[in-house]
């Protein structure tokens, strides 16, 4: 099931300090397990649990078992803050994994920063998340941020597919509007001005006005920044108007709430993906199979979240082992100078972080996914052909 590398780490860990085996290392987990973004939250949690289970089965870390302390933040900023305080002060976790929602991450992680406990954001994509604190920064990420994604979206739409008149549709939340800014900036870099920039609210059901404006402006592609249900309404609205131009947008176009609610209207939508449910390496095959077996499902609700969650656990485990301690400061230093290569499912992490760079992913890691027959698959086969199957972080 597992690569020899991780097994080796695990055995080494098991041998390291058997004396305190009764003890556990507490790891916090915060994400929305109910509500509109729960498909991402639950997949992330399941990916994390899978990795924790594997590590514990082979002896844990530093001879101790990892113990997850899961909390449902319901994508609510206030609740996220309360959970952060509980995990830090009451549960005294060694580190916390999670955050799906940029707003919750921004509100909560200052408490970890003050308490000097590392956080690995494994799903939230807001660019600001890694820029909130100067070094020593306790916030890390295993996700493709919005700057990377918007650049990819523009590259795909303008350069690769040759569209000339993009329309932007973004929801009115922080996520949508920050993403819209990033998109406009990236378009500007190519000397393209969007022909229409439209806004919609969460729970909006009629997109006629937005779509007609884009249509009358002569748009030949729609670039989106929103979440599943409203994105589905855009696709459904397009079908209603009989106006079919491609949808290219942020990775949320892979949410099951988009794919299921848009049905045939969502076919062909494209989005950046760090991980696609495609067994193209032995490691990924094993991961997908054990996920399917553990949770008894065929289609992973959010493969990206599951994979990034899974990888974040192995990064943390490697750092705790290298630090030989559960002290937050030592774990941060270990993460910033990780000497072991960690083979994850998204990529192979070779010194993923430095003191000033807490982003594990660079522009070359995500590829474009496309909705086909109700599932996300690879858009351009050549992107993952041969040795490109595993894309590793670019070094400056």
């Amino acid at each position: 099931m597992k690569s020899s590398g991780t097994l080796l780490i695990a055995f080494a860990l098991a041998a390291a300090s058997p004396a305190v085996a009764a003890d556990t290392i507490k790891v916090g987990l915060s994400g929305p397990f109910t509500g509109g973004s729960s498909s991402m939250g639950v997949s992330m949690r399941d990916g994390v649990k899978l990795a924790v289970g594997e590590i514990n089965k082979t002896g844990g870390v530093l001879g101790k078992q990892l113990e997850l302390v899961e909390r449902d933040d319901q994508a609510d900023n206030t609740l996220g803050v309360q959970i952060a305080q509980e995990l830090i002060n009451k549960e005294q976790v060694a580190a916390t994994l999670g955050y799906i929602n940029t707003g919750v991450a921004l509100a909560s992680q200052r408490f970890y920063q003050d308490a000097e406990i590392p956080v690995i954001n494994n799903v939230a994509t807001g660019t600001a998340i890694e820029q909130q604190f100067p070094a020593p920064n306790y916030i890390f990420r295993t996700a493709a941020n919005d700057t990377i994604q918007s650049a990819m979206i523009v590259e795909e739409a303008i350069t690769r597919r040759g569209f000339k008149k993009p329309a932007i549709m973004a929801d009115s939340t922080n996520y949508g509007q920050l993403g819209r800014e990033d998109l406009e900036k990236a378009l500007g870099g190519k000397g393209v001005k969007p022909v229409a920039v439209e806004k919609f609210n969460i729970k909006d059901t009629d997109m006629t006005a937005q779509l007609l404006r884009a249509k009358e402006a002569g748009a030949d592609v729609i670039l989106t920044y929103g979440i599943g249900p409203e994105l589905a309404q855009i696709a459904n609205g397009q079908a209603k108007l009989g106006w079919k131009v491609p949808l290219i947008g942020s990775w949320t176009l892979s949410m099951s709430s988009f794919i299921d609610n848009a049905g045939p209207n969502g076919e062909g939508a494209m989005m950046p993906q760090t991980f696609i449910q495609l067994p193209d390496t032995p490691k990924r095959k094993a991961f997908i199979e054990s996920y399917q077996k553990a949770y008894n499902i065929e289609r992973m609700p959010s493969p990206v979240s599951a994979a990034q969650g899974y990888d974040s656990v192995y990064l943390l485990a490697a750092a705790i082992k290298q630090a030989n301690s559960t002290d937050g400061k030592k774990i941060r230093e270990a993460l910033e100078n990780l000497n072991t290569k960690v083979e994850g499912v998204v990529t192979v992490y070779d010194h993923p972080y430095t003191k000033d760079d807490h982003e594990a992913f660079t522009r070359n890691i995500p590829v474009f996914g496309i909705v086909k027959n109700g599932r996300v698959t690879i858009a351009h086969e050549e992107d993952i052909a041969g040795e490109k199957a595993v894309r590793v972080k670019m070094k400056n």
Partner: protein
Amino acid sequence: MQVLAQLLVSGIAVGMIYGVIAFGYQLTFATSKTLNFGQGEALMLGALVGLTLAGHIGFWFMLPLVLIFGLMQGAAVEWLAVRQAIKTKTDSGWIMATIALGIIFKNLAENIWGRDDLRFPSPLPEAPISVAGVNVLPMEVLVVFGALGLMLAIEIFNRRSIFGKAVVATSNDRDAAGLMGINTGLVITFSYALSSMTAAFAGVLVAPVTLTGATMGSVLGLKAFAVAIIGGLSSGLGAVVGGLILGIAETTTGYYISTGYKDVPGLVLLLLVLTFKPAGLFGKAAIKKV
């Protein structure tokens, strides 16, 4: 011209949804001068119950069952939240009680159907009908005519049947109706049942067009309340016209001004109506005798 026509058609489809929910507000207000602030939740419950039933017996057979469910749900709301307040003649008890019940219904739905939006299979073809370049979904046509039909049926019932006359009598003067031997308590219960029935019906009609989930009712219920104020709480016609005004205002503002300001004209209109014609565009001005 074609764009304007398209905007109008979409505005009418959305507006009719607001209208039919607002009509439900008007039903209970007429008889008891109270409202069910959980109207949006009644719509949501109707849609979700309909979704579950449609999976077993199909869309069309599900409709009458959902109507019955709506009747019972409305009667339950009246019994639990409103009756006591009317009996003790408190002014505001029913407001808190119906809001609280709405929240309970929402939580209940979240526990039964989950918190994700679900897809409601459309009973009609999902391909749009195109008339002179204006596209409309068959389901939207059904929403408009279904809503109109239901409102018409209730109006006819109120005007023609003996029980309907009791409803009208209670609306006109509850105390006098009571003295004439009309069981006004029963009439009020009935009006709540009818009100939730229209909401449940609206729920299953709109569900294939919008998405279905525990939170689908909150925004619709609120907008319909604005519609009821604009149109006048004592007028069924006001609910329809108010709904159309708001629906069309939303789509046309979104197109001609900016989609960011879509909700503004409706709210401005609400303020104007409250300032210059507080009883609503079609409402009868209340004369307060002292």
